[in-house]
């Protein structure tokens, strides 16, 4: 195990963990419910670690990406349903990320939102075209580490650390009215969805194939998943805790993504503000690339096309056409003028509906000795995997009613 590679991998995972949905919901959760939703971030992070490690292990051992194996395991019909569902949810997520980029560039430059969204899309297209896979991952992941300014900002405002620590214990705030309880439940479901977005496992497993992982890389996969994602979730928890300290008491429930940068402006002034906006910008740009590529991987793997960014674009032409088209389609959704915050909500709801379809085949594959040999799921992975599957299945059923009843957490 190369320590430099491992460190870079972990740092990339940290900086690449957060996306626009997590930023928005972390700030809202903190402002409305204080520290009492920290445990949901922590629990859902354990969930994505479990499934992320599984998807990397499947890629390294079976040497096939998840969607190839999904089709073989589930068959054409059910596989197509899984593909269609995941395409739709990831497309909306990609559009939300591009909308987020447009907004962030607007906050930084004052330039019009839709123009910035279009320029972002073209820039992302150029990055994916020109840069090799590893560079794409590393550049955006490492620049996303600018979001560490949120951790420093939290430290600087001297928060109640004992309350933050207590927030890691599962809890429901006492004396909630039934309306507030429904809102709390919706936030819990939304946070789970934002942390466990399906595109993450597709991108991670396909990335493992791109980087030619084998059984020798299993330890790296495990450490990167656990350490990288755990540390990454601390960024979201820092945003939540700052919101609890600064926004809640001030009567602010942040309605727009730019609001979260106020958390760093308060202790650090304009430098803190710009670092926060840039950090979120690169994290969201990375997420936009991941969602677009995850969809292109899924389509190409399912239909048997040559795929991969380790090849030049013209060496995998249908795959190239797929990711270019998907980026443009996401931009088209943004250009309809739909409110980016609404896109975030739709992405959240669609994704949680699709999650059981995503994680069930992955569990079955990782549990199958025929594909995995001695690297099949151990007892811990099995227990945790099925436990989280039951949780997300219950949330998938509850998500839409909660979204409608609470008007997307607005009460």
């Amino acid at each position, binding site marked *: 195990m190369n320590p430099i590679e491992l460190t870079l991998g972990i740092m990339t995972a940290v900086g690449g963990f957060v996306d626009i949905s997590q930023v928005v919901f972390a700030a809202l959760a903190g402002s409305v419910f204080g520290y009492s939703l920290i445990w949901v971030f922590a629990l859902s992070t354990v969930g994505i670690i479990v499934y992320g490690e599984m998807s990397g292990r499947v890629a390294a051992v079976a040497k096939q990406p998840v969607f190839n194996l999904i089709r073989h395991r589930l068959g054409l019909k059910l596989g197509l349903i899984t593909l269609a569902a995941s395409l739709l949810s990831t497309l909306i997520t990609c559009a939300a990320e591009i909308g987020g980029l447009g907004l962030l560039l*607007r*906050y*930084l*430059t*004052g330039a019009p939102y839709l123009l910035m969204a279009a320029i972002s899309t073209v820039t992302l297209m150029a990055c994916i075209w020109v840069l090799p896979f590893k560079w794409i991952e590393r550049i955006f992941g490492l620049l996303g580490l600018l979001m560490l300014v949120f951790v420093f900002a939290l430290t600087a405002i001297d928060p109640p650390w004992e309350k933050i620590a207590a927030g890691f214990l599962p809890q429901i705030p006492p004396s909630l*009215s039934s309306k507030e309880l429904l809102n709390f439940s919706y936030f819990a479901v939304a946070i789970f969805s934002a942390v466990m977005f399906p595109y993450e496992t597709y991108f991670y497993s396909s990335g493992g194939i791109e980087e030619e992982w084998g059984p020798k890389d299993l330890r790296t996969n495990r450490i990167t998943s656990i350490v990288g994602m755990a540390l990454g979730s601390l960024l979201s928890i820092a945003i939540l805790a700052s919101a609890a300290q600064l926004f809640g008491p*001030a*009567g*602010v*429930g*942040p*309605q*727009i993504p*730019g*609001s979260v*940068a*106020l958390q760093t*402006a*308060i202790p650090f*002034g*304009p430098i803190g*503000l*710009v670092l926060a*906006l840039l950090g979120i910008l690169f994290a969201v740009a990375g997420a936009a690339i991941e969602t677009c590529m995850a969809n292109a991987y899924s389509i190409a793997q399912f239909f048997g096309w040559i795929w991969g960014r380790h090849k030049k674009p013209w060496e995998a032409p249908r795959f190239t056409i797929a990711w270019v088209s998907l980026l443009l389609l996401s931009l088209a959704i943004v250009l309809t003028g739909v409110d980016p915050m609404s896109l975030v909500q739709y992405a959240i709801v669609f994704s949680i509906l699709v999650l059981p379809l995503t994680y069930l085949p992955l569990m079955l594959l990782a549990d199958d000795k025929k594909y995995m040999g001695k690297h099949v799921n151990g007892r811990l992975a099995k227990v945790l995997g099925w436990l989280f599957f039951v949780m997300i299945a219950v949330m998938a059923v509850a998500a839409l009613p909660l979204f409608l009843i609470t*008007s997307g957490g*607005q*009460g």
Partner: protein
Amino acid sequence: MRRALLPLLLLAGCSKGPEVDLQYIAEARSLGFEWAMVNDLASRGKLTPAYVATMRESLREQLGTTASALTQPQSQYGNQIRALIAEPANAPAAKLRTHAGKLKQIEDSLESN
């Protein structure tokens, strides 16, 4: 039983009044306090000009959307929201907090009913 429920559900969907407007009052209250926070920080030199201008525009735009969603725009809270929107973009933070504070009082009293 289902047939009897349907017109009730339709009626519920068409109903007006403070109960339905409560979420918009909360939204306007939050936007007002946020606007105050932005102006307060801007006056202390903690924000960049581009960010201040964009946030003010976004917040006021959102307030306009919220105001137009009210089922009873001529109510006390409707007037309060319009008064908030009528403030200039660089209004003093204290003034904006006064408007938002009044909305908070209305919100709290509706919630306790």
